[in-house]
Structure formats: C-alpha cells, structure tokens
C-alpha cells in the first residue's frame, strides 16, 4: 500500500505530498500517527510545506495547529521562513557558518566622502573610507576598516567578534578604537600620528604598528 503522505526533505524544511484521492481526515490521521511515532523526520523547529491551495483554508489552519503543537512551523509558501531558523540551519556545521561570515567580511563598503561628526557608518562587511573620519563620527564594521585619510572619530572593527579584523588609516588617532570585544582609548595628551598605522589584536591587546602605503 502506498503511503497517504509522502515526506521529502528540502533545503529549508519538509515538503509534504499526498496520495491521490486521500481525504483530509485520512491525511490528518496519518500525519498525527507519524508525528507521534517520532520517526526522526519531524525535528522541532522544522518548517513543513504543503502545496498552496491543496486544502481549504480552515483545513490548513487545522494542520497548522497540529504542527504547532509538535513544535513545528507550517507554511504554504515554498520559501525560507524568517520567523525562526530551521533546524537545518541550527545543525549546520560550524565550518560552513564560519565560511559564510568570512565571505560576508570579505565584501567591502566604499564611502567616498568624509564622515563628519554626528554621522555614522555601519556595515556587516569591511569598510573603505576615502576621506577623513572626523571627531564625533562613528564607523562600525563587521570586518576591517581602511581609512584613506585621518581618523579622529570612533571606530569599531570586527563588531561581531572577528579578532582578525584591523583598522588602517593614513593618520590613526581615534578617540576610541574597538576591535572585536576589546576597547582602547586615545592617550589623554595629544599625540599626532605622523605615518600610516594599523591597529590589530595581538596577545589579547590592541596594538598599533606602522605600515607602508
């Protein structure tokens, strides 16, 4: 006997298809049985897709409630739900996640002007600024920050915790600099930077070193 309900694994969840001629009550009973048997298909947080228009609206609603009771999401749209990450996402190998975050950080936002006091630049990726970062300005980047000019503002590189991020500027004299979860502030006496420098983390401390440009 062919199954009343067929389950197919998709990228973001499970696709359900139904045997021809099966009534809604049969489908519901069959699904409930499968859910209660705990066969490993139905992991909490998974999204279950049912072809749109296959069942009437109130029948879909009944299915939705049934899946909810078992900790799953129900959808008639074949797309990634933005309510919660699916179990596949959670179980994704850490290496894969890391690769994605590195790819994100390798992208770059280019700002072709001076960032003035009171202005803010925020990006998930790295940031290149062709201009100055003035006192009172903020630059926050998931990746590294490169300033082709003078940096006097507030900069935060590796805002999501990337300790390999760095900040480079022709003249690096920020009021405060943060890399990942470390903070350093400018010395109280005025020091003028005379050459290009890079700030990075070494031995869990933010250090400045001269760079040639």
């Amino acid at each position, binding site marked *: 006997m062919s199954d009343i309900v067929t389950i197919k694994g998709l990228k973001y969840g499970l696709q359900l298809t139904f045997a021809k001629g099966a009534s809604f009550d049969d489908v519901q009973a069959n699904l409930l049985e499968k859910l209660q048997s705990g066969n490993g298909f139905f992991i909490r947080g998974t999204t279950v897709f049912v072809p749109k228009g296959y069942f009437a609206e109130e029948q879909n609603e009944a299915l939705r409630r049934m899946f909810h009771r078992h900790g799953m999401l129900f959808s008639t749209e074949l797309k990634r739900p933005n309510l919660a990450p699916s179990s596949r996402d959670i179980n994704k190998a850490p290496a894969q996640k890391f690769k994605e975050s590195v790819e994100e950080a390798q992208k770059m936002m280019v700002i072709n*002007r001076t960032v*003035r*006091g*009171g*202005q803010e630049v925020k990006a998930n990726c790295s940031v290149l600024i062709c201009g*100055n970062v*003035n*006192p*009172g300005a903020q630059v926050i980047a998931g990746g590294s920050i490169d300033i082709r000019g003078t940096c006097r503002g507030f900069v935060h590189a590796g805002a999501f915790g990337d300790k390999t991020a760095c900040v480079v500027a022709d003249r690096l004299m920020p009021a405060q600099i943060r890399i990942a979860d470390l903070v350093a502030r400018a010395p109280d006496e005025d020091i003028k930077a005379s050459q290009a420098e890079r700030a990075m983390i070494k031995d869990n401390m933010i250090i400045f070193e001269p760079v040639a440009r």
Partner: protein
Amino acid sequence: MSQILVITSGKGGVGKTTTTANIGVGLAMRGNKVALIDTDTGLRNLDLLLGLENRILYDLVDVTSGRVAYKKALVRHKKYENLYLLPTSQVKDKSAVNPEQLVTLCDEMKKEFDFIIIDCPAGIEQGFKTAIAAADTAIVVTMPEISAVRDADKIIGELGRADKENVKLIVNRIRPQMVEKGDMLDMGDIDEILSVVCIGQVPDDENVVVATNRGEPVITMSNSTAGQAYKNIVARLCGENVPFLKPQKEGFFARLKKLFGLL
C-alpha cells in the same frame, strides 16, 4: 545674477549675526543691492547690530503669513541706501515660519536684490532647516575652539544631507597670541578637520563689541583689524583673490604700554 547666502554655525555665540551684518554692509558699500533676512525668530538681534530696531514696522512672520507684502516689512539702512533688513518677530517662535514659505519669499526677492543674506539661528532644529532651505551658498562660521569646530563639522554634514554642497568657512575670533602659544587650535587643524574652502580669518577685536553696542558694524571702522578682515571676506565673495591677513603679533611697544597700564 543674484546670490542667496545663509550664515550658519550650529553653536551659538560664534558671531553669525555679526558676520551677517558686516558682510551685508560690506557688499552694500561696494554698490550691491543687499537684503538681510533675520530668521532667528524669538531671539532677533540683527536689527540691533545695524541700529535699526526703532524703525521696524512689520516682520518676517507678517510677510510669510501673507499679512503684508515683503516690501512693506523691509527696513532701509539709515546710512547705506541699498542695504535693507527684513527683521523677524520677537514674540513668535521658530515654528511660525516654514522652509517652503522662505523659499517662496526668496524667489520673489531675488528679482530685486543682488545679494540676499539669511542669518540662521543656532542649533540644527527647525529654525536651521528653515534658514538653509532657500540658500545656494552656505557660510559656516566657527571659532578656534573644539566645541565650535565640532558643531561646524556637524553642520557641514547636515548641509550635505540637505544637498547644499557650496559651503564656505569663516573662522572668527582668532587670538594670534594664543594660537602661537598652542593654547588655541590653529588654522591648519581647523582646515584639516572641516576641509571646506576658507574665505575668512577674523581676529578677535574689542572694536567688535564697541561697534555692536553702537549699532554700526565694525567693517565701517577704518582702524579695526576685524573690520579689515571682513572687508577681505567681502572682496573674496565678489570673486577677488585677496591674501589672508598676517596674524598681528603684539609688538614690543604694545607690550610695554600694557605693562605700564597695569602698573
């Protein structure tokens, strides 16, 4: 071709109104037909600096609300016949005038005047937004002091957001002795941070206070260094290439005089 300038600063007390009055008088002395519009509603001062308070009949709010034609509200300067002031109300507040009204007014006034100079209130709120709406050139006034420079930077950013790209800078109240000793920001520092075209460096001058209280802008005083600096600014606005004044050092005799003055 008429020009609409706005004089702004962000921070209060850096000399916006003084600058407006002096540039206005300077341009009028060169034979231009000039209108000064005070937009600092509720805290008007420009009429005092020009000595015109007692001649005001109507104000900007009367004009923008349509009660009178702008020509009726204009006050002609007693000495310079082609200098006019459009004063604002001292009893209303900034919400009495909105940006569209000022743009309409300036469009109308453009036909009559060579220069329209708008005196902007301090701050970055509605009054500022109203004042800059009609202008095609913004003149940012600052002082060699970190708070004034910081605010000027913010204002230049705000002007950029409002698509006012033609921005010029005047550094006011410079004290050469303090700059020399390193107690005051020097022009190099300010230029580097703000990076906009500087059209004037005005030294701090006691004559400015005297002039303000007398209601005669300092530009009319022949012996004042600040007056000379304002004359140079006016020349630069008219497209002349004038070198900046050399900072006047206090000479030996001046110091000697001060010493005896103290004794």
